[in-house]
């Protein structure tokens, strides 16, 4: 699987330290269909690059409460954490073939800033069809 903080995600981190800014109260998780099950966007990727699922068929970004992030631990590539699992609404139409998730700065689909993107850990593309219900575990890994 692949994961990345695109430049706009790095800007967020840079703003926190060393610039001493304030972090977001919450983040939002969405699903992307661009790239593949084992590749993600480049450093230059912006929200439209990820081809998020359309705002239809009950698809909507879901809130990740900042308080729901778990203990930071060592991963294969750096330091990482997982947040409480997020259950998306039941799909009432086909959402498409999803290759992973994004963590963004707002609830509006296909808008705002994408701070982080990653494939699912089983590196398998998943077709989200009508009546499917999925639960996603947000993860966030800083590579050293």
């Amino acid at each position: 699987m692949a994961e990345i903080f695109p430049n706009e995600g790095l800007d967020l981190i840079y703003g926190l330290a060393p610039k001493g800014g304030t972090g977001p109260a919450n983040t939002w998780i969405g699903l992307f269909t661009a790239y593949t099950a084992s590749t993600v966007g480049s450093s230059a990727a912006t929200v439209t690059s990820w081809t998020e699922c359309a705002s239809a068929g009950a698809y909507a970004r879901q809130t990740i409460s900042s308080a729901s992030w778990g203990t930071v631990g060592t991963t294969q590539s750096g330091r990482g954490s997982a947040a409480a699992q997020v259950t998306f609404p039941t799909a009432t139409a086909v959402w498409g073939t999803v290759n992973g998730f994004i963590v963004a700065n707002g609830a509006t689909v296909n808008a705002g800033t994408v701070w982080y993107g990653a494939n699912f850990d089983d590196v398998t593309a998943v077709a989200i069809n009508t009546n499917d219900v999925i639960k996603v575990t947000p993860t966030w890994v800083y590579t050293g």
Partner: protein
Amino acid sequence: MAAEINGHPVAELGNGMLVTVCASCGKLRTILFLDRDRWLCTACRAEGKTKPSLYPVA
């Protein structure tokens, strides 16, 4: 929303946070699908894993 299912397999991430794991293989995956009353990972869902019978009939 059947997000929480009593008796469903879960794993603890070390800080008391419980996460649902695949009801068939027990693995923690970043995406799970709801299949009736249990959550399955993509692989087990594709293989059509069925719920174990707790009361086999001879």
